[in-house]
């Protein structure tokens, strides 16, 4: 009995956790109902009971390095059946929010992203950038809501008639593509650093020796496996439902999956547009002009509505809205006494709504020729896309990288099996 462990509670950490959504964690009396009703929790050291006691004791080291918070897909079964209303599901969500805040570098962004008061500086950056561009271009073109005619592959402003061209007011080559390439590179850099921090933390945790386990899979093999099952098929997410889950909960996983496919489709669209544009430019630059102009023509914007790439974009937008409706409907109908939504949840869902609605709105009002609506909506669209991409590693959407890495790591060390099993 000599190996007594002296618990060193970190009281500030407990307060921090309570602030980011774990406010009811002190109600837990360790009955372990949560670990049993969780449809995903493994048999050995199941979550979330142990996380509840760690949180009560303020064991920061254990919690911030805990891989299990990423295995949870937050169906809420634990919180529904919790006899104390301690909301273990909310605690794990709060721990993930803490990870979004602290894993990536530049803590100021993490701080801004953690509460609604940070929204102003975050939105101000793209709003000012594109506001200035709009002002300068509008002054040069002689109108802040200009109309154009296409003359020899270039937008020429006209006083009478003409059409709306976002590329005329915000020339892609100078004001869109370079900005978003920098934003993209910034995001990749932040994720790289965040993932490195995450893996370092996981590596520092004690390892479990699993009897009879075959050779450990490589991280790459685990990653491919995660993409194949958890991401493309949503295996864990679809299993993440209590036995008597209601329709809204079941639709959560399918809604999320459609939204994800919508993003993939829109990513493909963006890739084709940018790839053919710059690819065509590159080919022409290299002297292969014939092929260059063909490639450029494929992705030339604005596309007619029957263009396959445009159709893909429209289908993607439709799927995205369908998914968003399912996710929003459930979130709005959550029983506050059982499961609450944090700023991270509302920020992301609102931002994605903004992206989809302004994207669709910009298309519609452009075709209708309503410049007074089309340009401002497009401007908001640029701001929201910028916000999604630039701050992605600090937002809840960061899970697309962090959860993927954590699930792959969990497969590598044997915390969860390879394949579709739980």
């Amino acid at each position: 009995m000599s190996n007594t462990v002296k618990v060193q509670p970190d009281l500030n950490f407990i307060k921090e956790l309570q602030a980011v959504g774990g406010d009811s964690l002190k109600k837990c009396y360790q009955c372990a109902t949560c670990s049993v009703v969780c449809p995903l929790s493994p048999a050995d050291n199941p979550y979330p009971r142990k996380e509840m006691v760690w949180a009560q004791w303020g064991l920061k080291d254990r919690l911030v390095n805990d891989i299990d918070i990423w295995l949870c897909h937050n169906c809420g079964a634990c919180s529904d059946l919790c006899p104390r209303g301690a909301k273990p599901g909310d605690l794990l969500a709060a721990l993930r929010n803490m990870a979004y805040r602290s894993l990536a570098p530049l803590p100021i962004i993490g701080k801004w992203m953690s509460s609604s008061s940070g929204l102003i500086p975050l939105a101000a950056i793209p709003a000012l950038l594109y506001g200035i561009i709009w002002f300068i271009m509008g002054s040069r073109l002689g109108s802040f809501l200009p109309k154009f005619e296409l003359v020899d592959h270039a937008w020429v402003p006209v006083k009478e008639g003409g059409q709306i061209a976002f590329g005329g007011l915000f020339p892609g080559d100078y004001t869109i593509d370079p900005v978003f390439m920098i934003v993209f590179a910034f995001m990749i850099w932040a994720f790289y650093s965040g993932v490195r921090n995450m893996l370092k933390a996981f590596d520092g945790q004690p390892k479990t020796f699993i009897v009879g386990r075959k050779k450990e899979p490589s991280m790459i093999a685990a990653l491919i496996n995660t993409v194949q099952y958890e991401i493309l098929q949503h295996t864990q997410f679809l299993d993440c439902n209590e036995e008597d889950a209601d329709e809204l909960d079941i639709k959560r996983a399918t809604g999320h999956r459609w939204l994800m496919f919508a993003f993939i489709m829109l990513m493909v669209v963006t890739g084709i547009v940018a790839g053919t544009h710059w690819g065509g430019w590159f080919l022409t630059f290299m002297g292969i002009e014939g092929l260059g102009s063909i490639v450029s023509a494929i992705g030339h914007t604005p596309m007619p509505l029957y263009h396959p790439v445009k159709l893909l974009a429209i289908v993607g937008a439709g799927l995205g809205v369908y998914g968003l409706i399912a996710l929003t409907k459930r979130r709005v109908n959550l029983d506050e006494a059982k499961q609450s939504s944090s700023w991270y949840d509302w920020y992301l869902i609102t931002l994605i709504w903004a992206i989809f609605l302004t994207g669709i709105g910009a298309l519609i009002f452009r075709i209708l020729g309503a410049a007074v609506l089309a340009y401002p909506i497009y401007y908001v669209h640029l701001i929201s896309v910028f916000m999604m991409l630039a701050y992605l590693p600090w937002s809840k959407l960061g899970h697309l990288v962090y959860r993927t890495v954590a699930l792959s790591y969990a497969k590598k060390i044997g915390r969860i099996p390879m394949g579709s099993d739980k």
Partner: protein
Amino acid sequence: MSNNSILVVGGGFAGITAALEAAEVGYEVYIVETNPYLGGRVAQLNQYFPKLCPPSCGLEIQFQRIKNTPNVKVITMAEVTSVSGSAGNYDVKITQRPRYVNEKCTSCGDCEKACTTKVESEFDFGIGTRKVAYKTHPFMFPMRYVIDADNASESELAAIKDACTYDAVNLDDAPKTIDLAVGAIVVSTGWKPYDVSNLTNLGGGTLKNVVTNMQFERLAAPSGPTNGKILRPSDSAEPKKIAFVQCAGSRDQNHLNYCSYICCMASLKHVRYIRERSDANVTVYYIDLRTPGRYDKFKAITESDEKLSLVKGKVADIVEDANGNPIVTVENALTGIKTEEKFDMVVLATGMEPSAAGHQVLACSTDTDGFVIDGEGIIAAGCAKQPLDVMKSAQSGTAAAMKAIQTVVGR
């Protein structure tokens, strides 16, 4: 007009005690009881704390006192239907259901032999049956048969009447209304086992070999459906491996948001019942084992049983296999291992819900859980007030009698 009589609503251990304490110092007391017998939940137990006496033991003494105290008037199979007035001056209306058997009954049992229809026994919580002319248990008080006319055919009723040689069967019996004027009311309406159909993750009452702790009392009671043999309901086999699920509904804001006080001790007592009868393995799954006061000694002695394991962890899922064996899932909170374990039989330590819960209680208020709150001339006693064991119920009955007397004294 002021009145110094006292009405006791509910004739369980607390109610009987309150009535006797007041009557024996000279007050007129009425006991109104909804069942055909007095003794309440205690009558249904095999043994009760603190000394593990059979219920007939303590109740016999109380019944003897009632017989010797003409001031106590017992009205069984009756409900209070209205209360008006204020402290010291209540008008109470009581409706009594027909028993169809008068005081000439000698409990010879000839009527019971004459009937064929069997229905589920309320007294045995559905695990046994009774005839339509029945005596709930051997030490029933008042010792008089009851005829369940609703479930009997005309011809069967006629046969019952013919069988009686004492002219005790009165098929013309009808509901009666009784008006009482009293000065104080003791509410000792007691408790009911929490409805397991709400515990959907624990089978919701649909799993054959998952019984409640009160059903288990009936299985262990010599007067019960198995004559005191502990047999599992599906195939009447003797269980070799039994689990107890503590806090089945208690300490749970989705069900009973309080500790029912008695269930931990009841399960430890049930472990003793099992050990007296077999060498079955027993596991008790608990959140915290609560052994108030001197009961801790009882736990210490029971715990030394080598075939008993006490596991910290609440059972949150029960299913059954093809042979009707219940499978429980639980995380042992000390080892952090989640397991599924198969048992022959599972006992749910269901909690105490006040009988008043879900009913509109006349002339007094209840808290959010349904427990009765004392008013000026209305005093709660026993488990109507809070979850208690038998001993403390009796004490609260005495206390309620004192308060009732204070209300009516000098009127």
